[in-house]
């Protein structure tokens, strides 16, 4: 702490900017003060140990993701994540003056209890909805933190540092004060954090409603929607700029408008996107929630938040990319929305009736027993029918009889990246038997049976041959190379998400098993016994 003698101009209490003039030898009788200059909290936060603690926390988060490179190390990874979070929270609590710790602990306990109950009860088929709901919470929390920082910048150390001081007059009176201005850079970061958080929130709420079936999965297309979206985006950018440049008294209406505009654009961005594209949307919102955390990290100068935000942001972006590639769709066209809008129209048109072979569970069981190698291709329909446990029983019986059984998973097999793997893991399918598209596609030529259950578009050869098909270019399984194909399907009507007919139904080596997936597999299991 430095002791200085300052001349304080008369307008000291009203102006955000003080002209301070220092002198060591006050002339007697002049308007002089003895001041304690206070460094702003922003500068106190650069206590190296605190910064180090947040850095360690960030490194633990990196290790958490690194652990997921293999199922064997993944549980340790998850624990690293928990340790990182604990370090961040304890560091924050230990280095701030806390007015009321009880309130804070109650808030953590309430949230924690809700979270744990949800985590325990949620069905694995409902993971996409859960993740979307969780994203919305991160988004909303970012908005709240941004607003709290706006209302109480002093607590966040956002006030311009040289303008915070307390002074002791010679007669003993103490005056203290701080300018109420936040630096323009902090305001841009704050504005972006609030905007991204609000977009994440409203977008995730719509994604949640669509995924959980509380809202129709079909895209809602507003006329001139691209224009509306771009317009709203422009409004957000302009408002952020105005907010950054505005004087302390003019910021409130701007930040309110900014928050509302961001909520609206999150809503507008997701309503035109159809159910089939939800895996991309969930990944994209995952990315946004990361960028929101990063923007808040910039505002607070917090390393843990910045590292985490960057990790989560990249993670979501990469997953969106993987999903787009798996559907052969460009990211832009997904965002532009409208895919799947005419899916119902496709089902309605009259198609030529082509001959197909239908088989029974007994036929299928007989041929599966004779096979040396069986590749199972599960799709979301299997999960809807809850057939995964019966399917695993079938695979176990076949393995006991010496048949090699492998599972082939398409990246879009579930409702979110990796969803099918979780569903199979839940049914206790060992993960060594589960293969990704590119790892197993060459093996169909050696397979005796390709067993398709609840999947459709991912085995459709039209994706390779028919340039007019909406799924053209999407990587698909080469099931036509297998000696025998079993296709479990409820009926011959209803064709996949993309609404296209599938030549696999009519191949010579295909046997259609028309029934509920679970019932059919249970019958096969009975026949195998």
């Amino acid at each position, binding site marked *: 702490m430095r002791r200085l003698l300052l001349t304080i101009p008369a307008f000291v209490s009203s102006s955000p900017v003080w002209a301070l003039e220092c002198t060591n030898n006050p002339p007697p009788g002049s308007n002089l003060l003895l001041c304690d200059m206070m460094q702003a909290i922003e500068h106190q936060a650069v206590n190296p140990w605190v910064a180090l603690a947040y850095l360690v*926390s960030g490194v633990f988060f*990196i290790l958490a*993701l*690194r652990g*997921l*490179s293999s199922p064997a190390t993944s*549980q340790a990874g*998850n624990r690293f994540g928990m340790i990182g*979070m604990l370090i*961040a929270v304890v560091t*924050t*609590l230990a280095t*701030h003056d806390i*007015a*009321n710790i009880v309130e*804070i602990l109650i*808030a953590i306990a309430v*949230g*924690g209890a*809700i*979270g744990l109950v*949800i*985590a*325990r009860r949620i069905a694995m088929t409902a*993971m996409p909805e*859960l993740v979307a709901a969780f994203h919305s*919470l*991160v988004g*909303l*929390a970012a908005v*709240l*933190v941004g607003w*709290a*920082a706006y*209302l109480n910048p002093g607590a966040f150390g956002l006030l311009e540092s040289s303008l915070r001081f307390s002074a002791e007059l010679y007669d003993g009176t103490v005056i203290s004060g701080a300018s109420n201005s936040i630096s323009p*850079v902090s305001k841009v970061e704050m504005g972006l954090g609030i905007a991204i958080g609000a977009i994440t929130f409203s977008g995730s709420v719509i994604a949640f409603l669509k995924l959980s079936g509380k809202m129709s999965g079909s895209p809602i297309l507003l006329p001139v929607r691209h224009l509306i979206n771009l317009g709203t985006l422009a409004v957000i950018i302009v408002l952020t700029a105005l907010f950054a440049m505005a004087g302390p008294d003019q910021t409130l209406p701007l930040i309110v408008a900014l928050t509302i505009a961001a909520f609206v654009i999150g809503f507008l961005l997701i309503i035109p996107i159809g159910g089939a594209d939800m895996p991309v949307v*969930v990944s994209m919102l*995952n990315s946004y*929630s990361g960028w929101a*955390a990063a923007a*808040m*990290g910039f505002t*607070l100068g*917090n*390393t843990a938040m910045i590292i985490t935000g960057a*990790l*989560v*942001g*990249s*993670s979501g972006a*990469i*997953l969106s990319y*993987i999903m787009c590639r798996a559907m052969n769709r460009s990211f832009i066209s997904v965002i532009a929305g409208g895919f799947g809008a005419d899916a119902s129209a496709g089902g309605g048109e009259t198609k030529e009736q082509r001959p197909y072979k239908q088989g029974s569970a007994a036929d299928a069981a007989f041929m599966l027993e004779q096979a040396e190698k069986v590749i199972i291709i599960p799709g979301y329909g299997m999960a809807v029918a809850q057939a995964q446990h019966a399917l695993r029983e079938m695979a176990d019986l076949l393995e006991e009889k010496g048949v090699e059984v492998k599972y082939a998973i398409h990246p879009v097999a579930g409702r*979110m*990246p*990796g969803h099918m*793997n979780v569903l199979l893991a839940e049914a206790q399918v060992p*993960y060594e038997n*589960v293969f*990704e598209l590119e790892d197993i596609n060459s093996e169909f030529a050696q397979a005796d049976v390709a067993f398709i259950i609840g999947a459709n578009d991912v085995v459709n050869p039209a994706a390779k041959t028919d340039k007019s098909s909406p799924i053209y270019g999407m990587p698909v399984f080469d099931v036509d190379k297998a000696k025998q194909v079993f296709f479990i399907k409820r009926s011959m009507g209803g064709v996949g998400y993309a609404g296209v007919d599938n030549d696999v139904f009519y191949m010579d080596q295909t046997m259609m098993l028309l029934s509920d997936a679970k019932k059919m597999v249970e019958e096969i299991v009975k026949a195998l016994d």
Partner: protein
Amino acid sequence: MDFISILSIFVLACFVGYYVVWSVTPALHTPLMAVTNAISSVIIVGALIAAAAADVPGAKWLGLLGIVLASINIFGGFAVTARMLAMYKKKEKK
């Protein structure tokens, strides 16, 4: 910390994230999303700071609400990830 130091950390962390996430096996992409969800709730740090300071009541209540939301995510996210990861089993040796 000055803006450039923060930006440096951010840019480098983006690269770390890029390479770390590509090394995640596709079989674990759903747990990856659940755990990234949990860790992005490190935003609770901001909520704690807001809730700790009592001088502006509005900011304090926003902070407390933020703590509740982020806690749902932290506890829920890590717990559901742990639940999923526990299901990934190797083949039993017979």
